[in-house]
């Protein structure tokens, strides 16, 4: 994992549609699984949602109280906060096909 995760995609598109994907990645500490999940997610977003996504990484070690509110069970977990409906994918996201299905990105492209 890089030491700094950018809050937004560097190449933010000014074009339509401005529908922004909000993704939250819940991890527990900087484990290899966490690092893999982040890089896998980033890779997928870059190729499918370039300029239309925002990833928030939440470390449950620092904010354990968020686990209850957001119904987190497993780590790593990616929650598609927007667009609706909420979708949840668990795992280190190594299986891209499953991630695409989970995020419902197949239809988007």
């Amino acid at each position, binding site marked *: 994992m890089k030491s700094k995760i950018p809050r937004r995609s560097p190449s933010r598109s000014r074009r339509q549609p401005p529908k922004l994907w909000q993704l939250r990645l819940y991890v*527990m500490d900087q484990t290899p699984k966490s690092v893999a999940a982040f890089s896998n997610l980033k890779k997928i977003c870059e190729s499918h949602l370039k300029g239309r996504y925002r990833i928030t990484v939440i470390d449950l070690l620092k904010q354990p109280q968020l686990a209850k509110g957001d119904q987190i069970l497993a780590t790593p977990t990616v929650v598609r906060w927007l667009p609706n409906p909420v979708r949840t994918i668990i795992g280190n996201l190594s299986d891209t096909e499953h991630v695409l299905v989970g995020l419902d990105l197949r239809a988007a492209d």
Partner: protein
Amino acid sequence: MEESSGMKKRGNRSASISSLLPKCPTGIQGLDEITGGGLPRGRPTLVCGGAGCGKTLLAAEFLVRGVTLFDEPGVLMAFEETEAELKANVTSLGFDLAGLVRRKKIVIDHVHIEPGEFHESGEYDLEGLFVRLNHAIDSVGAKRVVLDTLEALFAGLRNEAILRAELRRLFRWLKVKGVTVVITAERGREQLTRNGLEEYVSDCVILLDHRVNEQIATRHLRVVKYRGALHGTNEFPFLIGAEGLSVLPITSLALNHQVSNERIATGIPKLDAMLGGQGFFRGSSILLTGTPGTGKTIIAANFAQAACRRGERVLFFSFEESPNQIMRNMHSIGLRLGPLVNSGLLRFHSARPSLYGLEMHLTTIFKEITEFQPAVVIMDPITSLMDAGTASEGKGMVTRLIDYLKAGQVTSLFTSLTQGGHALQQSEAAMSSLMDSWLLLQDFEGNGERNRVLYVLKARGMAHSNQIREFLISDRGVDLVDAYIGLSGVLTGSARAAQTAREKAEALAGQQEAARRKRELERTRMALERQISGLRSEHEAGAEELRQIDEQVGTQTRLLTTERTELGRLRQADVSVAAGKRNGFRNGRGH
């Protein structure tokens, strides 16, 4: 974007598991007795059972009692029910879960799992669950944790290999954390739990069961396994009442009731006399067995009346007659119970035994007793109530009831209906071992009539009569009469009266005979006396004759001497010479 860099491990890892096996009392009635003090402290306990058998309620009570009785905060992690549902469900048991949550004594965390909700891609772990649990435990300083139907995870997560590894890790972590955990799980078909959770929880396994026997549903609890501790291995019936769970240990482990030396009258003076003159011990249990129509209820009503007259409260459970019927019937023998009811000293509680199951009856009985606080409790008849369950359940219930009553120093009188005949039923013999005193009422048939008799079969700790007594019921009440016991057996009723008359006649005849013999003897004696006096006079006559003879002889001698002297005087011979010679000889010797 946020960057996670902290490498700090989760805190509070107290790895102090004592080598001894400390217990964590559940506070659930009866369960601590069976397990010898509670669940293994600091270890997980698995509670498994089918749907609706009370797993969640047991777990919830474990937490609530933990706070209210032992001041141990708890965490309830619910995988099936939401917080609101849980709060509502346990309110029916009188638990203020919502209040405890508000006071930060209990944390409820509902883990929402929809089957198929998660898309899985690659490896994961259940750190999210760990974090939530850890956060919840630390936020209230919990000592007790409940994981309600952890198996829901198996429905939500597809990768069973990861799940099993994580569960193993979870239990290890919980042990290190030092919390006492109750995990509930669904009963499996082949194994204890559907997903083999017993594999991970090896310290204590409790099995709950809810089954129907002869149309009557009863819940059972069994401690399948308790590593390193003695425990009751039997199945124990338990019930869910208004005050939570209550396990009914058939073999109560603790027999340490307070006992009283005070004696209380039975209301029948002659019965008191049979019981060492003072009646029963206060707080003892009394069994009154009898065939139909032998007067069980009457004795019970007398006992109730006597207690009320002492100013004590009496609770009369009737399972066959309505209160009004009992009052009317007792009125016919001069027992007026109505005023006692009106004064509030006597309370009736009538219910058909078939109305509901044994556990529900027991709950109702406990509730009534707690409310009314009686000094005397009467169950009329206990046998019809016991019919509401199986024999062992019935005995278990009576044991539980007696334990409960004795703990409160309540005197209890149970009537028991036997099917007739002399042989006592097995169940009765079993029940009698729980009783301190046992009176037997019986019918005696003969001479075309039936008569009631009463025995004291046993009375622990007091001198009691071994005699059979006839039990008379009249419009003035009841009385006990000595039954006649003769060569021809026990005689009661008119036979006893006839026998008494016969005895009287026999006694009279005997008296007359004696008088006759006395007269005869008198006569003989008088005859003898007459004979004696005859002999005596004869004897006296003889003596007289003898005296006369003596007299005659004396006179003759005197006459002879006189005659000789006269003769000598007449002859004037050498009387003096002769005399002098005789004198000289004497004198010569003297010289």
